[in-house]
């Protein structure tokens, strides 16, 4: 900012942000204070004592360990799947000529507006007929399938700035369409593929509706957490630990990625001005 910013601005923004900071600190504090001390609220200062008791007991009380493993598998496989399949499709749409190219492209990139609610009923009956309920595939297929609606748009947008001459040079030098993809285009799209991976990982890890409907015994963390966070469960300390375990991985990835994202958007806006 040019000139001197008024002093009151950081103060006002700071006061506003208390509304976001206090609830976030609340779960951390609840998780490390004895339940008895927080019956009247985690912010009470009359009897301060810290304990990791809840952090030890929670693993046997709730199925967080299993949930973590299921979440890691689902998010991991779905993320790798999207990262492998998306660039090939985006390349084909951007640089190859084939029948129905534009029709298919329009259908796929506009599907991003569809709510998950639109696809779950038929998928539920389909998986039931195929015996896929409670199979990780029942969740992985829609995770990856739904991702193409935005991921192909993202990578193809990136490829629009890719020098066409390089692709043509590869073709003239005798590369087929597929080897052009692997040798010329793919090595230069890694940053956009990485962005797809981050978004897909966060989406899959946090997803609740799809695994809630299609999985029964092996369920990921948000489902485990939703099952234990009914209004009348009294174990606030244990549930605070469960809340942190549920969200810590995506939160850290999100915040680490945010720095690159903000930096990236600043660079692009700077270069385009």
């Amino acid at each position, binding site marked *: *900012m*040019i000139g001197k910013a*008024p002093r009151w*601005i950081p103060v006002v*923004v*700071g006061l*506003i*942000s208390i509304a*976001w*900071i206090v609830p976030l600190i*609340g779960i951390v504090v609840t998780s490390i204070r004895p339940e008895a001390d927080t019956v009247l*609220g985690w912010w009470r200062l009359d009897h301060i004592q810290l304990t990791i008791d809840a952090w030890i007991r929670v693993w046997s009380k709730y199925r967080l360990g299993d949930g973590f493993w299921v979440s890691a598998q689902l998010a991991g496989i779905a993320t790798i799947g999207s990262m492998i399949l998306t660039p090939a*499709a985006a*390349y*084909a749409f951007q640089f*190859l000529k*084939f029948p129905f*190219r*534009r029709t*298919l492209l329009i*259908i796929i*990139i*506009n*599907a991003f*507006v*569809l*709510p*998950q*609610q*639109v*696809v779950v*009923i*038929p998928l*539920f009956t389909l998986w039931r007929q195929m015996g896929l309920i409670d199979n990780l595939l029942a969740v992985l297929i*829609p995770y990856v*399938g*739904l991702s193409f609606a935005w991921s*192909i748009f993202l990578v193809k947008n990136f490829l629009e700035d890719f020098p066409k001459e390089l692709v*043509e040079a*590869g073709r003239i*030098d*005798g*590369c087929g*369409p*597929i080897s052009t*993809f692997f040798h*010329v285009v793919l090595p230069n799209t890694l940053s956009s593929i990485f962005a797809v991976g981050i978004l897909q990982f966060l989406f899959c890890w*946090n997803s*609740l509706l799809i695994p*809630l409907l299609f999985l029964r015994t092996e369920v990921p963390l*948000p489902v485990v*957490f939703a099952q234990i*966070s009914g209004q009348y469960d009294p174990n606030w300390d244990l549930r605070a630990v469960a809340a942190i375990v549920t*969200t810590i991985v995506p939160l850290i990835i*999100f*915040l680490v990625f945010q720095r690159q994202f*903000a930096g990236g*958007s600043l660079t692009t*806006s700077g270069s385009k*001005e």
Partner: protein
Amino acid sequence: MTDVALQSRGGQRDTPPAAEGGARERTALRRWIADAPAAYLLLAPVLVLFAFSVVYPLIQTIWLSFFDIKGLAKPRFYGFGNFVTLFYDGNFRQAVVTTLLWTVCTTALSVGAGWGIALLSALAPRQTLIFRFMIFAAFGVSEAVTGYIWLGIYRPDASGLLNSLLYGIGLGQFAHPWLGDAHTAIWCLIIAYSWAQTGLPLLLIYAATQAISKNVLEAAYVDGASPLQIMRHIIAPLSMPGVRVALFINLLGSLRAFDTIYVLTAGGPVRSTETIGFFMFRESFTQFKLGYGAAATLVLLVAVLIVSLPAIIQRTAGAR
């Protein structure tokens, strides 16, 4: 790059390069034919998965909405019966009203708050970095966990942060079982969801303010404009592209919201917090009226399509 190209050429010396010989048009045609198998090979897994998880379910949802399905009994063709029933179903009408209130309020609150904070922050970017970071962090928390955080705030007795705060400032008579009352529960949900969703508009609009040319701001400053005037007359109007994107993204997100509602109230009390996106879940997966749920989903889809029509037109026109 050159190495790769040379190697490839070495490996395929026998086949003449496609660009040599023949008229330009014939080359284009040959290329069109030559590319097709490769293109479909690269696209095959994408098309199969997309068909499985988007195309088939979408068509099938439309198809199912014309059937009366109760549990595992044989589906019965019902014409527009489901839609007529929806129209006269008090719970569905309630869900439509709730959806409108929910969508408008959560979008206005989250984008409004994000916009305000972004404008203030644009005047003092470095000193406000940590605050923006915390608000953005709330956006990164899983929605199910957001629900739990706000459960703690709305607890009915003095152990809830909100009630405790009211007692603390001498307004104890307003303490309330916030989520247990059908009149206040929806507002509690709206605030909790807006709280979580403020981070994205903040980021998008802040990025838009950072893209404003420094020359413009400098000129205004040299001409003697006060920081607030700069904010009001330069930064605010120039941040509109960010506002528009944020409005669209949050509108779409609010219409499909499910997680926060499921964790905080599960639609209650007395179905006062059911949006259409939650209504379909209840009818289809707790009452197992799949056809009825599918019909409700289509109403949601129409709402989503209306909201996203400009974006769809833009994407379709830009698809080359």
